[in-house]
């Protein structure tokens, strides 16, 4: 089952919902009901119904016996919400193998949305952004919402430049509930600027996690002799030598990753580096850890 978390295997699956369920179901079964995590399906307690609660969660058996409406509460059910911020700039279209960074991000976002919606009953929202907010799916838990999120993910295509400030500022106006914000991007920007842009999302007690998705070629590029490189976002060209790529560039990308992680931690923001040739469980595992820590 672990193989189904392999991006190359998932890439062969056509339906994004099927990808999401495959990833999450496989992931969950692989956890063997670890004591570290409480899933929403496990009963925890009853609490009195309050206006606004979803009537689907009312325990009608108790209501019949006691004429009181109680809401059935489960482990992990904290009325949390998950906000997925997906970078759909042109640089996300890069790949050195069969799967682009954006396709990888799309799988992660779909899997997280599926896990949050179906397993955790969390409201899940989605923001597709580049230099502006291109698509926005407000967080909700109602039936069919997951399909809407997945449809928005499918419709998105990598294009234009990246700007973290404007989209995240725009997002702040929608974050009224406590929840988790997951930013999926390659983060080609100065780490301080990125952290400065995402730090305000931590208001209302939100947990912010940065998933930096990079292609292996970006971390360890291979250049034979010299190459003329073209920036996917700006179109700028630059001739680079093999010596530089294998030396100075590696130092700079490693420093960039390290700086971003350090800056994020310093600001109380989670950070994880994901490579597109690695399984997706790292992202799901990280999500659950944060989710559990919040309960």
């Amino acid at each position, binding site marked *: 089952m672990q193989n189904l978390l392999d991006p190359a295997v998932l890439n062969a699956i056509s339906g994004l919902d099927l990808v999401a369920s495959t990833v999450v179901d496989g992931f969950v079964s692989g956890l063997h009901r670890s004591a570290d995590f409480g899933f929403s399906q496990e009963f925890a307690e009853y609490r009195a119904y309050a206006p606004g609660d979803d009537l689907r969660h009312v325990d009608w058996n108790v209501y019949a016996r006691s004429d009181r409406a109680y809401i059935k509460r489960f482990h992990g059910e904290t009325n949390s919400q998950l906000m997925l911020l997906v970078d759909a700039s042109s640089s996300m279209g890069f790949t050195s193998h069969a799967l682009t960074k954006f396709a990888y991000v799309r799988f992660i976002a779909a899997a997280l949305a599926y896990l949050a919606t179906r397993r955790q009953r969390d409201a899940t929202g989605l923001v597709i952004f580049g230099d502006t907010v291109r698509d926005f799916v407000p967080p909700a838990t109602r039936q069919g919402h997951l399909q809407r999120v997945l449809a928005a993910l499918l419709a998105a295509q990598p294009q234009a430049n990246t700007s973290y400030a404007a989209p995240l500022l725009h997002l702040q106006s929608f974050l009224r509930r406590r929840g988790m914000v997951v930013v999926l991007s390659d983060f080609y920007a100065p780490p301080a600027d990125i952290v400065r842009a995402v730090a305000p999302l931590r208001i209302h007690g939100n947990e912010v996690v940065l998933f930096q998705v990079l*292609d292996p070629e970006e971390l360890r590029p291979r250049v034979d002799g010299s190459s003329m490189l073209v920036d996917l976002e700006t179109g700028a060209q630059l001739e680079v030598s093999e010596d530089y790529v294998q030396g100075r560039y590696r130092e700079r990308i490693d420093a960039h990753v390290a700086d971003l992680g350090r800056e994020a931690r310093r600001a109380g923001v989670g950070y994880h580096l994901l490579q597109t040739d690695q399984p997706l469980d790292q992202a799901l595992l990280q999500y659950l850890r944060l989710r559990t820590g919040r309960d």
Partner: protein
Amino acid sequence: MGWLAPGFLLGALAIAVPVWLHLLKRSSSQPRQFSSLMLFEPQTRSTTRRRRIDHWLLLLLRIAVLLLLAAAFAEPFVRGHLPGAAPEKLLVLAVDDSYSMRAGTRLEEARREALAIVAAKARDTRAQIVALGSRAAALTEQTQDADVLSTALKSIAPSDARGSLVLLAGLARTLAAGTQMPIELHLFSDLQATGLPPDLSELRLPPGVTLVLHKVGQPTPNWTVESVAAPAQVWDPAKTRIVATVAGFGTPEATRTVTLFIDGRSSGQQSVKVPASGRASVVFAGAEIPYGLVRGSVQIDGADALRADDSYDFVILRSERVHALFVHQGSDQATGLFFRSAIESAADAAVVLDAVTVDQLRTRDLSSYAFVVLSDVAGLPAAVETHLAAWVKGGGRLLISAGTAAAQQRRVPVFDAPITGSHDYTRDDTRFAAVAAVDEAYAPAGPLAGWQGIKVFYVTRVNAPQAQAGLRLADQTPLLLEKPLGQGRVLLFTTGFDRLTTDLPLHPQFVAFVDRLATYLSGRGSRSSALNVGDSVELRPDPALRGSADVLAPDGTHPLDLREAQQVRSWPLPAAGFYVLTLADSRHDLVAANISRLESDLTPAGDDKLKLWEAAGSAGAAPAPGTGAVTAPTPIGSEESAHNLWWYAMCLALVAVVAESLVASRYLNTLRESSK
């Protein structure tokens, strides 16, 4: 190592192209998309790095391809053996089978040495056997089969032909033109001095031919009847003189007995003292010669290695004197007198001249005359001209002199050429014209020296561009013209035989000229008393003749097959002896063929000349006087020869091309992957 076409090495300069392309490619790489250049620094581009060449292996392979191609076209060669390969060459064994090889055991020695060469040759070496006589006859194809070569060598028999070393040079050129292999040419011969041409450059051998001479035999004294001067045609045996010359080559002084045989019977015998390595002549006069074609022979008592040249054969035709008709104007009696006197003054006086006037010509039967002379006739009646022209067309010969009387006519009868005018040189300042040009190949004209001092005062000018001019005056006016008419011939002397138009009758040249004319017109000059082996006899005088020719050889065989008998025009005499010929026009003839007396001198050529020739053959250059470089022949299979390596260079170039393709394909795939 050397180069046959070094100019092609300039093609190696083309290696600059791939070097330039590799440098160019380095600075114009294919753009490749990358997610972000944020972490790249523009200042990392290095000028030094830019100039470095990428894909060294590919570049080296491309340079190798160009260099090898240039080398292949420049045709490198090395001398000596290629490692692991037997030297490739063509072995040509030429065995002299000329008459001189009959002396002693020369031919056997030559054959034995040639067989030894065949036995010693490498099994895969191709060889060819050639018999060198009057011509170079290939006895085998170029073959590796030693049995075939040995059989051909054993089949070589001595001939009566004259050997010429010039033929060998021609053979070498022919062989070299037909093969790319170096040729090793072996000549097995007695290498007579008489076989060498006066100019050694005629023995020039082409490049790639190595000459190895195998001299056989030792100098041997030899006497011979060197020549016989006998008239081809006689009418009065009492006046006949047969002069024989006896020569000795390398001989001591000795007395030889010389015998004249006529039709196989001894007709006279004399003794003559021949000086050491000298000559002596014997004259047989008044020998009894029967009518018809007679076989004559002069023999000496044989006491040497070559017997066939102790006899010299010849043929004499004895016939009655021929008659000629001299036609003149009735008033001109003097010219006929001059002409008759000249003819009767000739050595053999074989022509009887009948003088008639134009009116008398009408009733004459021309078939009994050998030729007719029209002496300055002022016009012929049409019937007479037609009669005369028909006789000429049937094979008759006519001499016309156009003096002052004939010049008054509009055309020359029978000769059928318009008279354009006349010129009286006595009215010029020079008073006369001299003979200035003589076609000495034209028998009646004779040598120019004889015409010096002859004055021509008057000449008739005709328009006859198709006629052959045997004599011309100083102003290029033709004096003697000839043109064919049917099977006969018409000669035009554009002045008279009288003393008014020329002073020729007053000079001795007149007798000689008239005698040559008479001989030529009567046909007596067309035959010779003896020929040499290798000379050709004409069997079909007129190519249009459909008749069958035949030859009866001395050995009693008929060498012509049916096709040759129907088609052959001339035929070379292959051996010494008498040949009975039946010509295509059914006439019969008898010819005598003698061995060339150049073969009788068994003195070998000087070693210095032979070594010079051999060395020049080894170097592929013409021998030059004073060149001292002489290389001794080396044993078969160990000598150095030039090996052309162009094929190896081309193969290496092909390998380099394949390697370049593979390496380039690998680089191309890498670039494709990089560009994705």
